[in-house]
């Protein structure tokens, strides 16, 4: 590999268009004759629709059409759920894109207006009169499971979407009955609103004469959008082109294919002109999928010297009113299978109940299942340390899975690929000067100041994933990735990938992979993605999989090119193929590096092709469909330092140090950026963010005025370090890094706050750790003492 390209922190190739305002996001695209759609959404969390009067709206200035559920009947199939969790009694409620007779969350779509301008479309929404008959609502997952609770879907008993279990290792009952120490906690993983800065949008253009449909969509996975649109709207895939232009972040919220997308397409098809729909931020809060929303009852069994002997949990996971595209897999597969964390735990059992509630559907949100698992395990380990009077470092060390570099089985059934968890922790302790921090903490306590240190040691499953496994766990698709590498005559390269990054920087890192494999400059490589007409099928960017799976596909395609190029080079140099050698873009006869052909020479010959070896086709391109043999398992150790003001309950995050291991880094600057962003999202969950519904299902944090996102002035510098443990099964040894920070940081910050408050007797506070919650926990603890 070329040392100057692979592994170097070069500037991103995406940026020139983004920093000059020249990039086109979906809402930036305007087509001739385009109309605008606006959606009327239910203000009730649960209500029967007794009638809809659209007469006045239809007559309003600029209005071209108004459609209700009755108008879309037969033209838009219910929105599909694509993760059919096996062995879980999964019950999928029909998700009508436009509500038929009942609305089940604030934001459920009731009607659509198409008008000449957005202002006119919104004016007309105010003129639609809907006769609602309000019904009782239920918003908390555990309440939804209780007897006598309002039922969302008559045919689905007890609001239960599924009941999934994982059992592994020894007898869990015995582990607890024999335990010398047991620690327990109930954790609320609050509801989070992803808040990609770009709101969701769809532009659909249907040409009646040809039956061709083009859809621009803010999506993380354009090929899945095409596939599902063809099923739901009935436009065949050969006439359906989906384009994810510039996409402004997703964090899981742009995985699902939404009712709004199907409705916009329906409108274009019905009217024969382009139609665009763009959500407002408050609409995003109501209708774009949320994340987390678990109630977790957890307990850990251990010996008196701190060795973990069992972990048991029951989780109530709120799914929202309907099951979003990938939702059932999040609190189950991506959560329950990770409960061993970085520890050797001999017995694990978890029950997960997925429950329908009168709330916005829940989906993957950065980390998706794994932050919830890490938080559980890291909380329990800290509780165990507190109970035994040991430093949290010590309890972790006593339970870490020892260093391994080619496979380690955990009792949940996964095989971790490689890891050195103690190594990461040691590096963290050194970089943060942990011993000194503990001394400073002790000193501060003497002076009445409450400083806390919080650790989080994590491992995550990513690079989703082997297709056989995906099938076995009910995902309605393989999870392979594809890449086409095409050399043009002048030696410039086009790379077409099926996955679709949306801010992560793969236009740069993938060019670096090609540079590393084929010795061309990254500047000579154009990475094409996000257009189903120009790219091979692929599954998209989520689960930290684009580099881990798509990158592998690309590396293998490049190696195919190298093999073919070697044959051509041998022919041109009149040597035997087996005598050829390759280094950094040059092919030469072994021992004679001066007589060589560059990859550019070969590209020219392969494309003009007037002197090709016998039986070798013209062209220099290769296609690979890569199906990973296993997942990849990045890991790391994080430390947060906080100070709590006991008078107000305010938490001040003073320092944050991270050590992450994602294997070899293609571009360390981009890796560091992913870690920064991920950490801050996890800090957001710990300290500020919460989607709050009242008991009637009204979203009280309905705008950015109420939902607190992390801001620059509330954060310290984030210190990022790394270790490098290659994945044994990946062609480049790389793992994923997109979610690592989020998976680790919530627990680190939470543990730090509890550590700070330990002298006051506080053991638990619900997240987010707002000043009032912290203050109340102090008051309660002081009352007890």
């Amino acid at each position, binding site marked *: 590999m070329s040392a100057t390209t692979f592994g170097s922190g070069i500037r991103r190739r995406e940026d020139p268009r983004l920093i000059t305002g020249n990039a086109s996001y979906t809402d930036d695209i305007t087509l001739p004759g385009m109309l605008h759609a606006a959606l009327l959404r239910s203000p009730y969390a649960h209500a029967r629709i007794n009638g809809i009067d659209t007469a006045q709206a239809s007559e309003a200035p600029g209005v071209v059409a108004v459609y209700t559920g009755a108008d879309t009947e037969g033209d838009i199939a219910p929105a599909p759920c694509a993760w059919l969790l096996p062995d879980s009694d999964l019950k999928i409620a029909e998700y009508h894109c436009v509500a038929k007779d009942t609305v089940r969350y604030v934001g459920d779509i009731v009607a659509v207006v198409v008008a000449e301008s957005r*202002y006119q479309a919104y*004016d007309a929404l105010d003129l639609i009169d809907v006769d609602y008959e309000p019904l009782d609502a239920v918003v908390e997952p555990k309440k939804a499971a209780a007897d006598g609770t309002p039922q969302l879907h008559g045919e689905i008993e007890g609001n239960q979407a599924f009941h999934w279990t994982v059992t592994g290792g020894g007898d869990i009952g015995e582990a607890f009955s024999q335990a010398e120490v047991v620690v327990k906690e109930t954790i609320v993983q609050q509801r989070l609103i992803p808040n990609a800065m770009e709101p969701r949008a769809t532009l659909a253009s249907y040409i009646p004469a040809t039956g061709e449909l083009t859809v621009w969509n803010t999506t993380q996975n354009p090929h899945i959008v095409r596939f599902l649109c063809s099923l739901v709207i009935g436009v065949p895939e050969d006439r359906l082109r989906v384009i994810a232009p510039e996409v402004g972040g997703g964090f899981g919220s742009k995985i699902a294919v939404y009712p709004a997308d199907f409705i916009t397409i329906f409108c274009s098809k019905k009217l024969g002109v382009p139609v665009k729909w763009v959500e407002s931020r408050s609409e995003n809060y109501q209708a774009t999928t949320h994340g987390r929303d678990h109630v977790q009852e957890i307990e850990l069994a251990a010996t008196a010297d701190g060795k973990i002997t069992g972990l048991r949990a029951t989780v109530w996971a709120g799914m929202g009113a309907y099951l979003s595209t990938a939702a059932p897999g999040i609190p189950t597969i991506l959560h329950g299978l990770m409960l061993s964390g970085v520890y050797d735990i001999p017995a694990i059992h978890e029950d997960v109940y997925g429950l329908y509630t009168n709330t916005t559907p829940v989906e993957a949100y950065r980390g998706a299942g794994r932050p919830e698992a890490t938080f559980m395990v890291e909380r329990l380990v800290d509780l165990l340390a507190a109970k035994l009077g040991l430093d949290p470092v010590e309890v972790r060390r006593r339970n870490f899975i020892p260093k391994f570099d080619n496979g380690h089985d955990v009792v949940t059934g996964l095989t971790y690929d490689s890891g050195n968890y103690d190594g990461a922790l040691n590096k963290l302790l050194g970089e943060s000067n942990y011993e000194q921090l503990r001394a400073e903490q002790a000193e501060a306590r003497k002076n009445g100041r409450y400083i806390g240190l919080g650790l989080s040691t994590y491992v995550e499953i990513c690079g989703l994933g082997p297709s056989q496994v995906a099938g076995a766990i009910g995902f309605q698709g393989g999870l392979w990735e594809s890449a086409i590498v095409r050399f043009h005559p002048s030696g410039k390269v086009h790379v077409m990938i099926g996955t679709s990054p949306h801010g992560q920087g793969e236009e740069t890192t993938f060019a670096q992979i090609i540079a590393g494999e084929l010795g061309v400059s990254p500047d000579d490589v154009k990475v094409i993605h996000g257009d189903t007409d120009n790219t091979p099928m692929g599954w998209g960017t989520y689960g930290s999989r684009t580099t881990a799976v798509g990158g592998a596909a690309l590396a293998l395609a490049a190696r195919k090119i190298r093999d073919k190029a070697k044959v051509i080079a041998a022919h041109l140099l009149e040597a035997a193929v087996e005598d050829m050698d390759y280094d950094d873009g040059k092919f030469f006869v072994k021992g004679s590096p001066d007589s060589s052909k560059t990859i550019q020479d070969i590209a020219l010959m392969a494309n003009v092709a007037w002197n090709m070896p016998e039986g070798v086709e013209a062209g220099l391109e290769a296609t690979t469909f890569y199906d990973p043999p296993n997942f990849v398992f990045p890991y790391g150790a994080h430390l947060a330092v906080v100070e709590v003001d006991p008078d107000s309950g305010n938490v001040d995050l003073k320092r944050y140090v991270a050590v992450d291991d994602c294997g070899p880094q293609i571009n360390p600057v981009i890796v560091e950026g992913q870690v920064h962003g991920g950490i801050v999202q996890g800090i957001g969950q710990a300290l500020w963010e919460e989607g709050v519904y009242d008991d009637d299902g009204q979203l009280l944090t309905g705008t950015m005025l*109420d939902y*607190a*996102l992390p801001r620059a002035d509330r954060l310290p510098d984030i210190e990022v370090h790394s270790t490098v443990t290659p994945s044994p099964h990946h062609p480049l040894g790389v793992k994923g890094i997109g979610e690592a920070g989020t998976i680790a940081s919530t627990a680190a910050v939470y543990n730090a706050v509890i550590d700070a408050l330990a002298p006051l007797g506080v053991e638990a506070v619900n997240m987010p750790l707002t*000043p*009032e919650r912290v*203050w109340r926990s102090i008051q309660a603890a002081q009352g007890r003492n």
Partner: protein
Amino acid sequence: MFAPQFDYYRASSVAEAAALLEQHPDAKVLAGGHSLIPVLKLRLAAPSALIDIGRIDGMRGIREEAGQIVIGALTTHSELAASATLQSGATALSEAAGMIGDPAVRNRGTIGGNVAHADPASDLPAVLRCLGAEFAIAGSSGTRTVGAADFFEGLMTTAVEEHEILTAISIPSGSGGQGSAYAKFSHPASRYAVIGAAASVTVADGVCSAASVALGGLVPAPVRATAVEDALAGKALSADAIADAARCVGDSLADDEVLGDVYASAEYRSAVAHVWVSRALTAAAARCG
């Protein structure tokens, strides 16, 4: 989001604005727009017309006259924050203005618009109550002046009648030995005040000879914390004296008036208000030169 339709009239004088308000009974006054436009975009209001006073000459700027600092209603928060006159003569006001929203908001938002909207969570009302401001209000029948105690009548309600315009705000120039400060518990999302405490103290012969403390954020309209003021009278402003006095703040908060929301309950706000009162007093005391 997209506001409903309204008509628009640009006034070039206070008299013209007052006349336009008479002609359009359902109209709203537009200055910087940072209170009004968000409300319009969310369709929480649908006035028939906006009367834009943003270009009226002479309603902008800060000047000193006859022991008063006179601030034109169109003066922006940025101008308040950067004003040397205020920084020395009414520190709490420039300090609070610098904490409103963010730089872009401060560049457009005006003091007049802010106080006329009188959002309970906004910063300036408490400061102006603390500093004993007077408000000049103009209507078609002339102008009148109202003191801060009478200006803020209740939740988002001021002494400015429907057909009137707030034109200027004056505050007494600071005297020797006086210092003022504003301390804010900022909402992490909206940046509005969960609790805002403004304090002005005068020290003579080493003891507090005058104190004014006002609270905003947690009450429908700013209130003076007279119990705190009384507790400070005649005391040397030590850390303990300030903390003890600040703890009297609850006596000035009527239980049924304290506002709560999903982020911070009324009970909590009442219980911790003393922390910010104490901070404001400490900073104000340190500024008594």
